[in-house]
């Protein structure tokens, strides 16, 4: 499949008010297939919003290229680019009705009134606001304004939709509902979505692929399950979800932990880090565990469907585990042995610290 959006070696630095230089994009390259939902995920200041603004044309790259459908748009001003944006605070035109907001791109493009009215009607249907066209924007709730912003950005049939943390102002229930709707709309329209968020759960739920950004670089770009289970580096492993990171020594065919436990691995010799997700740990396993950890329960939280346990072990320090609730409740101070299956182990070729 040809690349729909291609960012090539993008660099962008800002001058800070203090006189320093902040590198927002440090040579980012990424390709997006058409109809793909890609999320840019990272802590604040990682460059994800800057990348989005460079794609939409509000910022210009210091060097590098942005190619949409085979043509470079790097030097093209924002109003001529075939992309539209859903803004974080919606940025609706509050002196216009809902319908005029949604039809703005068409009005600007000089389409005739009847065509605009038809398209606006379609868009309002799509986002579930049918019949609200005559309302003033200020009469709408936050969730409805969000939908107007989405309809407005889609009305002009962009080749690519950019979304800048669009759900961050909504409460949790509404946010989850909108996540599903956004995903459904994206599938229905079959256009590419580039979604910026710092909410990893949101990213994992919605995306075809997630690009994890930090320090102006893409740390890893992969499908959510790959990213979560097989992170390429320590940053991704640590940033995404909860993790236990244990140093190991590799010896050809086996890896050895600090307490002398070993497990088989095809990695060459050297030092590495074992990623052990808390939910990979559990009680006795039928096939026999690959690794076992014994320690004293230092903390435990009950969340309804599971217990979150912090196990204090002599060799590895604290190890976090999530145990499905239903059996015996763990108690602080009690000794406990937890086991991990071979399939729950993932090695990262990097050493912490």
């Amino acid at each position: 499949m040809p690349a729909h959006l291609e960012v090539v070696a993008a660099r962008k630095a800002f001058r800070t008010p203090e006189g320093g230089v902040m590198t927002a994009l440090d040579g980012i390259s990424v390709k997006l297939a058409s109809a793909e939902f890609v999320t840019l995920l990272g802590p604040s200041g990682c460059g994800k919003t800057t990348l989005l603004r460079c794609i939409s044309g509000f910022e210009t790259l210091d060097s590098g290229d942005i190619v949409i459908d085979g043509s470079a748009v790097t030097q093209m001003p924002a109003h001529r680019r075939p992309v539209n944006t859903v803004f974080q605070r919606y940025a609706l035109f509050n002196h216009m009705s809902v319908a005029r907001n949604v039809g703005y791109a068409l009005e600007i493009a000089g389409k005739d009134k009847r065509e605009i009215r038809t398209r606006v009607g379609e868009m309002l249907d799509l986002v579930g606001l049918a019949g609200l066209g005559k309302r003033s924007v200020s009469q709408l709730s936050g969730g409805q304004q969000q939908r107007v912003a989405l309809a407005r950005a889609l009305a002009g049939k962009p080749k690519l939709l950019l979304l800048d943390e669009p759900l961050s102002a909504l409460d949790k229930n509404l946010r989850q509902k909108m996540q599903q709707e956004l995903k459904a709309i994206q599938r229905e329209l079959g256009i590419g979505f580039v979604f910026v968020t710092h909410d990893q759960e949101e990213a994992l739920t919605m995306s075809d692929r997630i690009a994890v950004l930090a320090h102006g670089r893409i740390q890893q770009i992969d499908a959510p399950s790959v990213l979560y289970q097989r992170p390429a580096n320590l940053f991704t492993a640590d940033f995404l979800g909860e993790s236990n990171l244990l140093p190991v020594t590799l010896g050809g065919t086996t890896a050895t932990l600090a307490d002398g436990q070993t497990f088989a691995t095809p990695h060459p010799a050297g030092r590495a880090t074992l990623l052990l997700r808390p939910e990979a740990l559990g009680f006795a396993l039928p096939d026999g565990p690959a690794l076992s950890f014994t320690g004293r329960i230092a903390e435990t939280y009950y969340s309804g469907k599971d217990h979150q346990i912090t196990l204090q072990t002599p060799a590895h320090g604290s190890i976090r585990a999530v145990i499905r609730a239903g059996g015996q409740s763990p108690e602080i101070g009690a000794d406990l042995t937890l086991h991990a299956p071979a399939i729950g182990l993932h090695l990262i070729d990097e050493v912490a610290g």
Partner: protein
Amino acid sequence: MNLARRKVLQLIGLLGAPTAFLLVFFFGPLLIMLVYSFLTPGIYGGVDWVFSHLNYGRILGWADTRYEKFDPVFLSIFLRSLRLAALTVVTSLLVSYPAAFWISRMSPGRRDFAIFLVTLPFFVSLIVRLFAWVLILRPTGFLNQGLMGTGLTSEPIEFLYTDFAVVLGMTYVFIPFMFLPLYGSIEKLDMAQLEASADLGATRIQTFRKVILPATLPGIIGGSIITFIPALGNFIVPSVLGGAKVLMIGNLIEQQFLSARNWPFGSALAMMVMTAVLVLLVVQLRLARRGGA
């Protein structure tokens, strides 16, 4: 005591004093002027209590044929005042709009300082400031000396005592009146909306027409009204910078009350100004209602 009664008493307590003040010191004199404008001027000043429509006639087209023929001079002064006031509104808008835009994008500290600078002229007496303009504009003034010194002109240009000088002076005086309401609406403008407009395909000019202008229209209308009203009735600027050549209605009213001692005629002129202002306010209300709906 029931709630409604208490509310009424509260309202009276809060609004009673200002209402009484305005009734006695604003509405009262206005009523006197209205009555005077329909009376006959006394021979030695004051009024004779005889009904007369000729005060308005002298302005609008019929005169007391025993003493004078109708002369449209008063009407032309009135029209000139409308024109100069309108010009003042336009020039102060042209100066203030970009300035307000620029200042609203400054860092907060510099912004406050810039707004302070805009209001700074209020700290100096108006007369002093206007005589400073005389020094600048007169034939041997700074402006003409500069123009001749650089060889752009060989003769001094008559700036002083022209429409130009009056509009310049009034623009100078009323810029803060225009600036502050404009700034209020421009500062509220959401920059993200401008980006959204560009994102949806609008050029800068389209964004200005469709987003910036409508969003700042309340400020433009507000600033224009509160500039136009005092500019229309202004008599200090035209008397210092316009001299006898550029008489405005404010000067005429002042003369009728202070020199000519023809209070009924002066009152009629004042009522004309007030009518013009009221018409304008009605138009503004209409516009505001349409914009707000």
